[in-house]
Every structure is written in structure tokens, then in C-alpha cells.
């Protein structure tokens, strides 16, 4: 066809007729993904997919290696974002209407209750899956070889997940919201405990100032709700999106997911949708397919075997879609059966008894019962610092990408699990039976309790025990496994105690059925 012979209208007609082809071609620039080349091009040319490598290591696709935990966490966030967007259609952040809006969502909006449940449970499930994801990273020794900083970002994401959940908890403005807000704002004000002891509160009231900024006043009210809403809707989502972007970007920068240095033959491409083509394709062998060649720093994949890779399209994306639908189905099934709680309208005069924080903070509430400062800020701060430091204090490069490193690691994990559980249960049992300093010497100075309380002792024990493990095994890696295991065990057991075993007036009960009836 020669352009010169065609009239303008002719060209227009031709364009109109070929619109289907040209439109498809405009986003599938390399044609249908039929060859490795075009499959690669799909990934590279697509905005949403280009975050992935064009090829994916088979180890990455092994379900037993990642358990899909990171993906599930991400998809939960996506679900929470979308369902949250829908909820915003009805919600308005005013103490006069927020509660009624939630009631309306529950009662007169088709699929409203389900949507609210989905939002609530996907958010809370995120906490669990982010923690599990972290556990996977620790136990597979994956926080090394350039991934140290990504671990730090991961911890930031964990914190953001917590705070996002917490701020969401406060939006319905029911009794749960109100009293959680009261408790949280007072934890924010907890440094007062310390400044009081040094007598500098009147000059430097950092705790009080934090509380005031958080609440927009001295007591929870309309301003607090507006601020919490701002946090929940704009600031924290922006933060988590940014951190998540960096997190993903760094995964790619650091050479994709971690994998063992040697992947056995049996792991290689058996029965992939698109089996690896060892020859052909646009890329020569012994090359990675990312931009990391241009970047400075360690690119551990460069010298490794690329024989164990398959094209990401479709292998990786099938896996991702499957995990997404799995996550979605799981959340919807859970949401179908379990309703998100909604209590009475907020009442400033009558606290819930027991006034419990959301469950994921009940481990902290267990600690707060000695010292608000240590339990609410000091200990969590130290725990987070400890988590952040793990990749910097354990720099052994062996056993990279292997679950529990070796047999010894597995033994250390089991041992730490038992020791950690014994320690936390023991300390809880002691405190529940005998009380603590305040019960023995009611007039004791608060400084003593800040310095010596079960939480501190527990933390000290955990640190000491992991140091002992390092000394015994001569390996910092074992110390890291031990420390993280005990952290996880403490968090789980303290949370369980706070959720199930604590009743009215924070008394101990074996089950909620023994609570004195209110």
C-alpha cells in the first residue's frame, strides 16, 4: 500500500478497520506472547509487570520456599485498599454521623456488611501475614547479601500495618474506637512518666505534646476523629505505598528473591507451562535480565546459574493470580461468617470493662499494666530496634536461602521456641499469682518499676539467651534464629493472654466463660 495514493478518508477508513489490531498492538507491542522474546517483552513493556524480572528463578516459584507470604500480604493490602475505597462512599468522619454511617453500611447497603468485614479482616490478616513473611525471611536466611536495608523497610512496613489497622479501628466511633483512642493517646503520653520522675514535665512535656497533637485537644473528640481519618485515609496509605514501592524495587535490585547458592537438579524446570528454553531467545546465557547490571552494588545473581530460570510470563503471573484469588476467596469466606465488631456508641463516661485495645496490641497491653512508658514505648521500641539490627549483627554469608540454614538451625529454633515459651509463660504465671512491686510495696517509686518489670526482664532474658546461643554455637546466625523465634513466641503468647485470658479489671481468667457477668 502506498500512502501517497490513498486519500485522507481512505487512510481514516483503514485505520478505523484496523483499530482492533492496532489497539492490541499498542499495549502488546511485541505481539502475542508466544516466544520467549515476546514473553519477555510483555513483562518489560508493561508498567504493572515491569517490576518483575523477565525471567524468574524456579526456586522463587517453589511454593514450599516462599509460602507466598509476601504476596498474600501485598494482596491483602490491595483488597483492603479497594474495599476501603468503597466504604468511603458512605462514611463521613464526624462524631455525629460516623457511627450512623457504619450502621447504615451494615443495614441498608447491599453487601455493605460483607464489604466492611472484608476491609476489617483483610487489614487484620495483614498483620499476621506480614509477621509470617518476616519469619520466612529470617528462617530462610534471606536478609543478607544486599538485602539488609530491605529488611529495614520491611520492619517499617510492619509498623505501618499496625498503625493503619489501629487508626481504622477508631473510625466507627463506637465504644471500642473511643476507648482504644483513649488508651493509645495515653500511651503516646507515656514519656510523661519519665519526665515526671526527673521533674522536667513542666518544661519539656514531650508525652503531653504528642498526645495533644494526636488528639487535636486534650480529650478525644471531633478533632481526634478528623486527624485519625487523615492518617488512615491519606498519610499512612501514602506511606505504605511508598515503602512498598521501595520494598519491591529493592527486591529486584537485590537480584530477585533469595535462593540457595546451589539448586539441585530435581528443582529444575519440570513441567512448566512454558519450559525453560536453554538456547534461543533474545538474551544470551549467563546474564540476568534486570536493570541491576547498571546499578552499583552486589548483584549476586550475576555469576549464578541461569539455567534454573523460566520466563515470568506466564509462569510467575499464574502463580501470582492464583495467590491473589486464593487470598480473595479466603478473606471473603472468613468475612461471610465473622462479622466485624461494632459496639455501642462512644460514651466518654463509661469505659468498656475490660477496655481492651485491638487484639494485635494486647501483647503490649499485657506489658503496659506495669509501666505505660516501658510497655507502650520502651519495650516495643527496643523490640523493633532488635528486629532492625538482626541483619547487621548477623553477617555470616553461608547457608543463604535455606530454611533454618542447617540441622543445627532447626534445633536452635525448636529449642528457642521451648525456652521462650517457658520464659514468657513462667513470667506471666509469676505475675498473675504473686503480683509485682506495686502489689508488694504500694509506695515504691515508679522509677523502680520502669527499670525492673517483667517485660524488661523478659527482654533481657531473650537477649541474654540469644547471646548464649551465639557463644555456644559460635555462629551469629544461630543467635538471629534464636532471637527472632523468641520474639515471635513472646508476641504470640502475650497476645493470646491479653486477648483470651484477661477479663474485667484485667484479671486473669482461664476463659471468657468464667468472666463475672456484667
Amino acid at each position, binding site marked *: 500500500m502506498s500512502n501517497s495514493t490513498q486519500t485522507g478518508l481512505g487512510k481514516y477508513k483503514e485505520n478505523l478497520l484496523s483499530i482492533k489490531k492496532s489497539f492490541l498492538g499498542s499495549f502488546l507491542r511485541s505481539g502475542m506472547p508466544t516466544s520467549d522474546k515476546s514473553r519477555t517483552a510483555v513483562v518489560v513493556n508493561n508498567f504493572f509487570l515491569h517490576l518483575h524480572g523477565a525471567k524468574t528463578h524456579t526456586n522463587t516459584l517453589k*511454593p514450599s520456599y516462599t509460602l507466598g507470604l509476601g504476596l498474600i500480604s501485598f494482596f491483602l493490602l490491595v483488597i483492603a485498599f479497594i474495599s476501603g475505597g468503597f466504604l468511603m462512599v458512605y462514611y463521613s468522619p464526624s462524631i455525629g454521623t460516623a457511627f450512623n454511617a457504619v450502621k447504615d453500611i451494615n443495614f*441498608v447497603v*447491599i453487601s455493605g456488611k460483607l464489604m466492611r468485614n472484608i476491609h476489617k479482616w483483610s487489614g487484620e490478616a495483614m498483620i499476621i501475614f506480614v509477621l509470617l513473611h518476616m519469619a520466612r525471611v529470617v528462617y530462610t536466611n534471606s536478609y543478607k547479601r544486599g538485602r539488609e536495608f530491605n529488611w529495614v523497610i520491611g520492619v517499617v512496613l510492619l509498623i505501618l500495618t499496625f498503625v493503619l489497622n489501629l487508626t481504622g479501628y477508631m473510625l466507627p466511633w463506637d*465504644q471500642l474506637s473511643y476507648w482504644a483512642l483513649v488508651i493509645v493517646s495515653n500511651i503516646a503520653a507515656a514519656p510523661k512518666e519519665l519526665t515526671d520522675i526527673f521533674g522536667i514535665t513542666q518544661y519539656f512535656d514531650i508525652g503531653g505534646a504528642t498526645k495533644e497533637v494526636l488528639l487535636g485537644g486534650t480529650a478525644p473528640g471531633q478533632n481526634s476523629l478528623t486527624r485519625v481519618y487523615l492518617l488512615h485515609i491519606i498519610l499512612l496509605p501514602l506511606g505504605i505505598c511508598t515503602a512498598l514501592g521501595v520494598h519491591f524495587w529493592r527486591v529486584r535490585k537485590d537480584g530477585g528473591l533469595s535462593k540457595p547458592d546451589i539448586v539441585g537438579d530435581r528443582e529444575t524446570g519440570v513441567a*512448566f507451562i512454558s519450559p525453560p528454553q536453554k538456547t534461543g531467545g533474545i538474551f544470551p546465557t549467563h546474564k540476568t535480565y534486570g536493570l541491576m547490571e547498571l546499578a552499583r552494588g552486589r548483584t549476586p545473581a550475576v555469576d549464578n546459574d541461569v539455567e534454573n530460570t523460566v520466563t515470568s510470563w506466564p509462569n510467575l503471573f499464574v*502463580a501470582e493470580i492464583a495467590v491473589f484469588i486464593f487470598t480473595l476467596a479466603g478473606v471473603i469466606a472468613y468475612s*461471610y461468617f465473622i462479622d466485624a465488631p461494632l459496639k455501642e456508641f462512644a*460514651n466518654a463516661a463509661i469505659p468498656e470493662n475490660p477496655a481492651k485495645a485491638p487484639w494485635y496490641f494486647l501483647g503490649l497491653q499485657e506489658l503496659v499494666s506495669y509501666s505505660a512508658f516501658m510497655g507502650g514505648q520502651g519495650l516495643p521500641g527496643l523490640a523493633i530496634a532488635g528486629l532492625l539490627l538482626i541483619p547487621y549483627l548477623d553477617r555470616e554469608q553461608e547457608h543463604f536461602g535455606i530454611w533454618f540454614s542447617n540441622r543445627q538451625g532447626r534445633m536452635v529454633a525448636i529449642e528457642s521456641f521451648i525456652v521462650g515459651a517457658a520464659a514468657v509463660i513462667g513470667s506471666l504465671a509469676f505475675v498473675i499469682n504473686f503480683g509485682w512491686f506495686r502489689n508488694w510495696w504500694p509506695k515504691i517509686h515508679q522509677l523502680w518499676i520502669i527499670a525492673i518489670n517483667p517485660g524488661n526482664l523478659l527482654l533481657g532474658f531473650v537477649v541474654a539467651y540469644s547471646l548464649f546461643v551465639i557463644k555456644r554455637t559460635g555462629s551469629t546466625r544461630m543467635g538471629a534464629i534464636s532471637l527472632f523465634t523468641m520474639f515471635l513466641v513472646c508476641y504470640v503468647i502475650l497476645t493470646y493472654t491479653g486477648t483470651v485470658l484477661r477479663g474485667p479489671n484485667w484479671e486473669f481468667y482461664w476463659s471468657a466463660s468464667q468472666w463475672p457477668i*456484667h
Partner: protein
Amino acid sequence: MQSRFYLSLLLISSLVLIAFMGIAFNREMNPEWKKYQTEYKDFLVKNAKDASTRQRAERIQIGMQQIYIKSLERSDRCMSCHRGVENPLMAEAEQPHRQHSGNYLENHPIAKFGCTVCHRGQDRATNMREAHGEEHTHWDFPIIPSKYIQGSCAQCHDYEMLRQEGGEKVARGEELFRQKGCQGCHKIGGKGGDLGKDIAGIGSRPFAYFSMKHVVGDHNLYNWVKQHFDDPRAIVPESEMRVFLTDEEAELLTTYMMTFVTAEMPRNYTLIKNVIQPKIDGESLYKMYCIACHSDGRVSLYDEIFKRTIPAIRNPAFTRSIDDEHLRTIIKEGRKGTQMTAWKVSAAGLTDADINKIIMYITMNRPEKKPEPFGFLKYKADVRHGEELYNIRCEFCHGAEGKGGEGFLGINLRNPAVQKADPEFLAITVRDGREGTPMVSFGMKGLKLDNQDIADMVAYVKTLSQKK
């Protein structure tokens, strides 16, 4: 291997997803109210007497019903189930289809008033459990039982009108409230004693305010209040409330309690026909503020709750020996160390005029004859002899230390009201005794002590406050 694993995961997850979308859709499409509305429509169609009625019945559209009342901040969705509430054809039908009983709706059109303004319950809920606010639905104001419902009428109407036109229960409750002396301990609008809790707004207090531990049946406001009237200590073990009510009275008072709500109705809803204030004379004031403790005031009582004897203040023997000024001080300032609280305006809201009326009523039967003067000053009192006498004669009622109290019939003699009283007054009391109380006459009329002995005893009593 992986591909099959992921494809299977995808397939199974998708099937689960589709299944749950299906059952969720089914649940959303078949809410409880839809069932009731279908029943209602079917009933009307089946029982239609003529063609036009049938046509109208067939035209009924099934859909959520709502009465939105902006000024009351309510969105009543009750009619989503109770669609027949205005339909005279449904007078005999079963709930939820039955027409509203009585002629209340004539003057209270549903479009203007809605339902929950009288019946309470959760306006926005669209299923029975939550709309009625049953237990564990986290709604503070469950649907109000019909026996207490008249409590809602007083939001807009005055009691005089209610008494005449369909609000007898709450009107009688209000009367009872004044007659049983509730305000002797409870403050309402700043008026009343301090022993009990302020009951303002009790009808709109959130559930969590009440301790429901001992409540029998549904844990809600109404059962709490009713059972608390039946037996205060069964509900609040440490309660010091004195009540003796029949079951009916307890119900009436419960109804009346439901009128104490904090929210006020908008002006255009209220209808005050008779602004007649109930007659407030000495007797009714006595009943409002005094009767709960002093009963009719003729005889003294040892009270098991207060663990002390409550004086008989309308007894002639008492009123004869006390002058109005002394009474007024006691009423205004109260008696320290006893349950008698101060009643002056700043403390309990009783004006001087009110107190005067009460004094008039108390002293109504005061005998003309003043007691024969004792002439205390004539005697030279011997405190030591007084002590000896006290230890045989007075000790077993007033206690060795003169403090009275638990297990003792006598009053506390170390009370300022006794210690600061005129010895002449005390001597006359000892000499003549107090009729209607266990305080017997120790004078010549009774136990035959001579005046010197009495003077000695009084002198000793006067020194009690200095003892440890």
C-alpha cells in the same frame, strides 16, 4: 510441577470464591424483612374483599421502608417488617403485621413521629434481633416493654393531660415518686438529698452504666430498674436504698423512670395542655423529701440498713420539746454523722419557704401545753454521779461511749445536735421520755429518778464529746 500446583490453587480458590459470592448474594437478596413483606402482601391479596382492594394490594412494592425524620435524627426502618402498622385490615393479624393498637396513631402520624421515639429500639437496624436491641446486640436502648411504654409519653405531654387521656400509668408513677420520698435521697434537677445517686437522665443512660450481674432475664435497662425497685440489694448488693413497693408500684415507678431522658424533644413535637403544678403543701413536701426515712414520723424505727434508730419527728413528745428555730437549723444544716443531710438551698435545693412548710407539717400536732420547765440551772450537777447512773441506766441503749449506732436503740449522744443543745431541753427529754420511741421517762412519771439524778446524768452526757 509448580504450574499444576498454581493452576489447581487458582481453580479451587476461584470455585470457593464463586461459591461464597453465590451464598453472599443469596443472603443479601433475601433479608428478613423481605420475607415479612411478602407475607403481608400475600395476606392482603388473599383476603381482599373486592377487586379494587385486591388491585391495590397487588400493587404493593416490596422494598425497604424508612421514615426519615430530620428534626429527631431518626431513620426508622421498623416498617420494613411492620408494614401493616397503619392498615386497619391488619387489626387481628399476628405480629409483625398487626395494626398499631389503640388510637395513638391518629394524633401521632407515623410520618411525623416514626416509631422509635416512643418504642425505642434501634432505628437503623433491619433485622428483628438488632432492631429490637436484644441482648448482645450492643444497642443501649432496646425496645421498651409495653408495660413501661407510657414513660415515653412524658417526653411531650404534661402529667395532668396524661392522667386524663391515656397515660395513667406514668401519671400515677409520677405521683408515687412524690409520695414515696424518692427525692429524700435522689436529686432531680438539683432538688433532693445526697444519699442516693442522681437519677437525672436515668432513662437514657447507656447499658454499660448499670451493673447487670444480678439481673434476672434479659440484661437491659428496664429489667434493671424494675428489679432494683423490687429488691435494691439483689441488684446492687451495697445499696442502702429503702423501698417497700408492691409489684404494681414498682412497675409504675419504672415507667416513670423512663421519663428521665436527657434529649429534649423539638418544640413542635411537645404538647403541654395543662400547666397546673401539683399542689405543694407541707404534707406533700414531707412525703417528697422525708417519708423515705422517717415514715409517718409517729414512731421511731431502728433501721437495719442504716444500722441506727431513725427518730420519730412528728411525735408530739418530740415536737413539744423542740422549737421551730432548732428544727429549722437541723433541717437546713443536717446532722453530721447521720444520714440526715443538709437541706438548705445550696445543698439540696429546698427554699426557706419549703422548709417552713415542712416544719409546719411536722409540728402540726404539737401539743398546746409546753412541758413543765425543768430548771436545769437550779441543780448543781455532779458529773461523777451522772456517770454512774449513765452506766446503769443509759448505757445499754446509747452505748458505753454514747455513740449509739449498730445494735443500739438509742441515738448518738455525741452528736453536735445533742452536745450543743440546751441542757434544759435534754433534761426535759430525760425526765419525760419520748412517746413512741424507746426513750422512756426517767422522771417521776416513769422510772422515778429524782430531778437531781437527771441533772447529773445530763451533765455527764454533756461531757461525752470531750471523752475519747
